[in-house]
């Protein structure tokens, strides 16, 4: 008999055939569409930022992978798909005005410190790698600003988002945009939604992020409750603030929801699986607090409010998972 040759295995013995690398590659593909839109809107600089970020992570990944293979260690990432996603996120999460070497630095910190490092020393990514790296950059920037005797970064020093007129006058940066080919002049709100040349590279066209993000979230089953909760909360807060201050609620919504930092972050960073809650209610709460905290930090003129909010909430992910557990079958109430 063939006693010795048979393998003992538990069920199941079949698999759907979709794996982590495929998930990462498809995510990368979707983000590439956003990257293309950003390059069209923002130009060559956007391409350079993205290529620098991608190049940095790929060099680091290839070096570590080669070392692990050489030393006969099980490679942390067999495929470059996951590092490529991290690189693309870094590229798209950088402000277009950032120096290229800063992008390279953030990408290096992301891949080395928060992707490989977190996984190795904490067995899991508790913080979103790109967000955590950017927070470190912001800390350095803030220290520099404080050292110069300023409370806010020079980019944000004149912003006054606590009044209707303050917001209106701060919008000069989003005015004077014209849609190419058709030559349509855009209002700041329209610019924020369609075509913005200021801010995050990934948020150059909010409408593209919305469409591509929604398709990706459906197709790849992202944690959509976080996206919905974040965007809905931010919309309500912005509209409420606009009405309360007798200002333009549409402009408020456009500013708070469609600045690149929030719209891109909501779809592609706040849904990063490892650092976000698993439970349905936990995800709704996470999105609610992410939007609320971001809104608060934006009103206070804090540079990188959404990124800081995300990293703070990442820390509490496990607590969110404990808040409310959905009722399983058998606990929903007997229907006789």
């Amino acid at each position: 008999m063939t006693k010795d040759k048979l393998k003992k295995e538990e069920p199941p013995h079949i698999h759907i055939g979709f794996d982590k690398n495929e998930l990462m590659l498809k995510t990368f593909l979707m983000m590439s569409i956003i990257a293309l839109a950003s390059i069209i809107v923002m130009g060559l600089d956007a391409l350079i930022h993205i290529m620098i970020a991608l190049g940095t992570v790929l060099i680091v990944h290839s070096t570590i992978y080669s070392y692990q293979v050489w030393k006969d260690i099980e490679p942390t990432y067999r495929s470059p798909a996951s590092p490529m996603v991290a690189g693309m996120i870094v590229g798209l999460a950088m402000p277009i005005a950032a120096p290229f070497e800063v992008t390279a630095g953030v990408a290096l910190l992301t891949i080395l410190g928060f992707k490989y490092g977190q996984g190795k020393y904490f067995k899991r990514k508790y913080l979103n790698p790109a967000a955590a790296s950017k927070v470190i950059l912001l800390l350095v920037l803030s220290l520099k600003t404080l050292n110069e005797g300023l409370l806010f970064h020079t980019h944000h020093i004149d912003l006054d988002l606590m009044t209707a007129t303050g917001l209106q006058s701060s919008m000069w940066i989003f005015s004077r945009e014209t849609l190419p080919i058709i030559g349509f002049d855009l209002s700041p709100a329209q610019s924020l939604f369609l075509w913005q040349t200021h801010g995050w590279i990934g948020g150059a066209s909010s409408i593209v992020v919305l469409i591509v993000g929604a398709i990706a979230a459906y197709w790849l089953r992202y944690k959509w409750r976080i996206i919905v909760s974040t965007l809905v909360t931010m919309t309500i807060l912005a509209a409420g603030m606009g009405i309360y201050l007798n200002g333009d609620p549409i402009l408020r919504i456009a500013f708070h929801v469609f600045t690149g930092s929030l719209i891109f972050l909501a779809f592609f960073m706040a849904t990063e699986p490892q650092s976000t809650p698993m439970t349905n209610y936990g995800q709704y709460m996470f999105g609610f607090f992410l939007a609320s905290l971001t809104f608060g930090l934006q009103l206070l003129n804090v540079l990188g409010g959404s990124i800081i909010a995300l990293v703070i909430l990442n820390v509490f992910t496990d607590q969110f998972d404990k808040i409310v557990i959905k009722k399983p079958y058998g606990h929903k109430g007997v229907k006789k």
Partner: protein
Amino acid sequence: MTTPKHFEEKGRFQMDISMKMGAEKKPFKILKPPKKAIVFMQQHIGKCNLPTVNEGEKVITGQKIGDAEGKMTVPVHSPITGVVEGIRKVYHPVLNCPDTAVIIRQEGEEGLMPLPSFDLNDRNEIIELTREAGIVGMGGAAFPTHVKLACKGVDTFIVNAKESDPNLVCDVRLMIEKPREVVSGIKLMAKALGARRIVFATRTHKGELPELEKIMKEGGIEVKRVRPSYSVGSEKLLVEELLGREVPSGTFPPDIGVVVNNISTAYALYKAAHLKEPVISRGMSFYSDKNGIENVWFRTGTMVGEVLGSLGYDIRKFDRLIIGSLMMGWSIPSSETPLLKYSAGLTALSPEYPKPYEKQLPCIRCGYCDSVCPVDIYPSLIMKEDKEKDVKALRRLKVMDCIECGLCSYVCPSHIRLTKHLWGGKRKAKRP
């Protein structure tokens, strides 16, 4: 039959069931009685039987060879005529450890020791017949059928012909080959239960089983077509799907006035009542990745190797043999392992067949397992708590409500066998 290519699960996940396609057209191949039968004393949920025969004793096909006292006991019968070669511990494919079995060597002329006569108009006698015939849930649950039939206050009796597993079709085949017999068994069950409503749950489409449907209609049996989904085949979920009633956690369908029985179980009762034959044989689907599905009628206690040999397969070409289906069956360490009365499937996989769980990656917390879970628990969080041995957290996460369907593992992009942690979690949560 228009078998769909996929089952649709929660979270928009699909399960490939293309291997079922056309397999129901293949008639049962009736295998010869084995030269040696290994009959386990434990082939039901409940108290284990004790052998009622001794080593060296002659036995006849259908003779009771193991029984015990108590409500949750079901006797076992000899599947062949021969001599008791020994009574010893043999690896049990479901208990996953050695267990007592009576080993019978075929000898002499084949005969049948018929079951005693019972009054089929008397509820109690039908229940007694069910027990005496050794009938258990033939879909794989092995719950003593007489215990189910003895339930009082049952208003609805569901016949589960859903057959959800991706590589099993033997129930549909049985409906094609033995429609009248199946309905006869269903009616006997309904009589014992006193159920006003009989619902026949099937995944077949209207007109695909014309004869059976005609007989059902004549007999006042309601035919309900269940949506193509793997998880709906589970007893509790089927009750909710068909009747909109939830079976509360920690209880069973009879507690809410519903009894569910498998179609093969109904056929076994027909055989016991009208042919006076206890459960000594049954139909199953044999699936190999090389040749697809074949339907086989075998004697219980037949060794897996002998089944494969009878079907003309070279056992050396396979490296995994599984009693049951691809989703829920356990692989066995030896081809000398016997089939049980509740073995609805046998699966043989060659070394070329993928081993999807061989290289597991760390959990990425994508939540796919949570989305697909048909009972709405959180397999990924349970896995974490199982590893940390946090019993309180496991209970809070309602691990005991897991139906062990395996869908969480099936969709995991990190190829983690989460099911293992759900079993582990259940064991830990059960402890006082």
